[in-house]
């Protein structure tokens, strides 16, 4: 008998011949949110800052300039060539001199100081940004290897809680949920930001 057949057989034995009915699942928790967008944005900003992310708000026509300023603050003045952006990032969001990710090997990506991507959805209550591998978000390695990550979030992408966030996602896409910069508390429980992932997270919130 194959291992598969044997394990499935064991489960059937364990559950017995006359199976009890499947117990009901009551989903009495919150799945919708009545809060106005302005309030959700405030919650999102509060959570992100609590995780030591930097948040900058701007208007729709100021994105590229805001991104450039944020990069300068994070990396220092002469950093233009060091920035790589997701292939589907709108032209009006790109800082001057940024190169586009063309599928280069991961080692080459690691040489860039910063990345700029969009997101698919942002969850206010948990301060979570979700990237889904679409052209605007880029492949997973792009938001992982450079040490500084800049994510541009538009206000229509912000939802209140986790259930509304997951409902907007495609479960078959490669998804990364990001809540603040990489962190560890493994040494005497003292939190240290930035172990393997980006040590700096900047969020540009377009309102």
């Amino acid at each position: 008998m194959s291992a598969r057949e044997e394990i499935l057989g064991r489960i059937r034995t364990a559950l017995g011949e006359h199976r009890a009915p499947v117990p009901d699942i009551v989903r009495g928790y919150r799945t919708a949110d009545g809060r106005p967008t302005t309030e959700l944005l405030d919650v999102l900003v509060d959570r992100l800052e609590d995780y030591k992310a930097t948040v900058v708000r701007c208007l729709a026509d100021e994105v590229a300039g805001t991104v450039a300023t944020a990069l300068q603050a994070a990396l220092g003045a002469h950093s233009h060539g060091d920035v790589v952006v997701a292939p589907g990032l709108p032209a009006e969001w790109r800082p001057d001199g940024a190169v586009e990710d063309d599928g280069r090997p991961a080692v080459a990506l690691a040489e860039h100081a910063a990345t700029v991507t969009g997101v698919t959805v942002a969850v206010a209550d948990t301060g979570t940004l979700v990237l889904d591998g679409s052209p605007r978000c880029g492949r997973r390695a792009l938001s992982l290897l450079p040490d500084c990550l800049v994510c541009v979030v538009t206000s229509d992408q912000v939802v209140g809680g986790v259930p509304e966030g997951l409902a907007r996602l495609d479960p078959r896409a490669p998804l990364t949920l990001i809540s603040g910069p990489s962190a560890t508390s493994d040494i005497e429980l003292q939190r240290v930001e930035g172990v393997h992932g980006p040590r700096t997270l900047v969020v540009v919130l377009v309102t």
Partner: protein
Amino acid sequence: MSAVDLGMPSLPHAPRGVGHLRGDRSFPDAARESLRDGQLRANLGHATSTIRAKRKAVVDEVPDWAELREAGRAIKAATMARLDEHLVALEEQVTARGGTVHWARDAEEANEIVIRLVQATGTDEVVKVKSMATQEIGLNEALEAAGIAAHETDLAELIVQLGEDTPSHILVPAIHKNRAEIREIFLRTMPQFQEQGVDADLTDEPRRLAMAARAHLRERFLRARVAISGANFAVAETGTLAVVESEGNGRMCLTLPRTLITVMGIEKVVPTWRDLEVFLQLLPRSSTGERMNPYTSLWAGVTPGDGPQEFHLVLVDNGRTAVLADEVGRAALHCIRCSACLNVCPVYERAGGHAYGSVYPGPIGAVLSPQLTGVEDNASLPYASSLCGACYDVCPVAIDIPSILVHLRAEHVEAQERTTPEAVAFRALAKAMSTPRLWRLAQRAAGLGRLLSRGKPTLPAALPPPASKWTRTRDLPTPPRETFTQQWVRERGR
């Protein structure tokens, strides 16, 4: 097991001689040693109280926590009730998206499968994401025996691996080590500090130690061709796997190598995508006390041009079906490994993780390990609890650990015909407490204990056997000069 009692064919437990589910000593023997280690107790006390406070704060801010907890419990119960169907659906979905599913009856078979898969790629080293399942089956040792180097990449696991130590906590496995000890391990073992003339001014500041780990692993991530991970959840309906982490080492492993091998216990499957909306709220708040952990990776099969181009999922039984056969004990399979029950457990806080002898310590370990191995192989674990109920209160999926403990004790006592001194003592105590005359006599006899204590506040550990079995791990207060009843009679008359 009750499966036997009901006349059902007995299902195999996790085999002996492989993996880490059994200690080489009983819990009381191992605990006695930890209790003498003041540093360990101080580290543990600090860690558990810190995480407890953080967890409470972020749980209290969720108005619908009770509803989420009930949904989490119900989803797990519903999953177990049709576990075979969900696993078959998961296999179908993963396969449809370019992954390959393997089934392993036990630890040995799982290790063989992984070794074969790694060898097929032609590499002799792998990077690993912290995973309870691979620790349970002893995968690192098996890989090493096959000539494959396995590099742990989680900071705590790295500390444990480089220090040739074993983990002591599910979530923070190196919690028994302080910063000075970690610095010493890094200086001694990391190649970057070994070369002559190297600037070894590594301080014991946590930030500096974390950066040393980053430098140590960076190049390994970039050159690795094979990664091995566990999984927190697998969605049957969509074939989506989930790994929850903080440092980004998980993302490195799940993204950069060409081949990804995920080893998962069969109980980790959840039926639908929607179910994750419950667990992704329950897990981070219960475990690290954060609203959300920094990184969660979700993937289904293979995505061309993004991440590993070869994906293998190894589904492991290793005693789980035997647990499933026990209708009371089955709930132990609902565990999402948040470690909240460890952090509230007064026994864990004093004894530490190593005393449990299994990769699953604390209250959940006390009910899970003996069921996976068969109670006879972990006979002392169901007694490693004061039944105070704190574990049940914090468990995000409402596992009634105290009831399972009592159930397993009953099973163990039934299985064991022989009467222990402890059983005799308890029976006598129960009798004495129910008869006032005997109780007064017993109290007067206890007064004799004062002679043994020589004025110290607790009785000495060196009582003659069989009483020593009880007192060597417990501080019994020295009996008072006068019992309450005696005092009452003296001061107020009858």
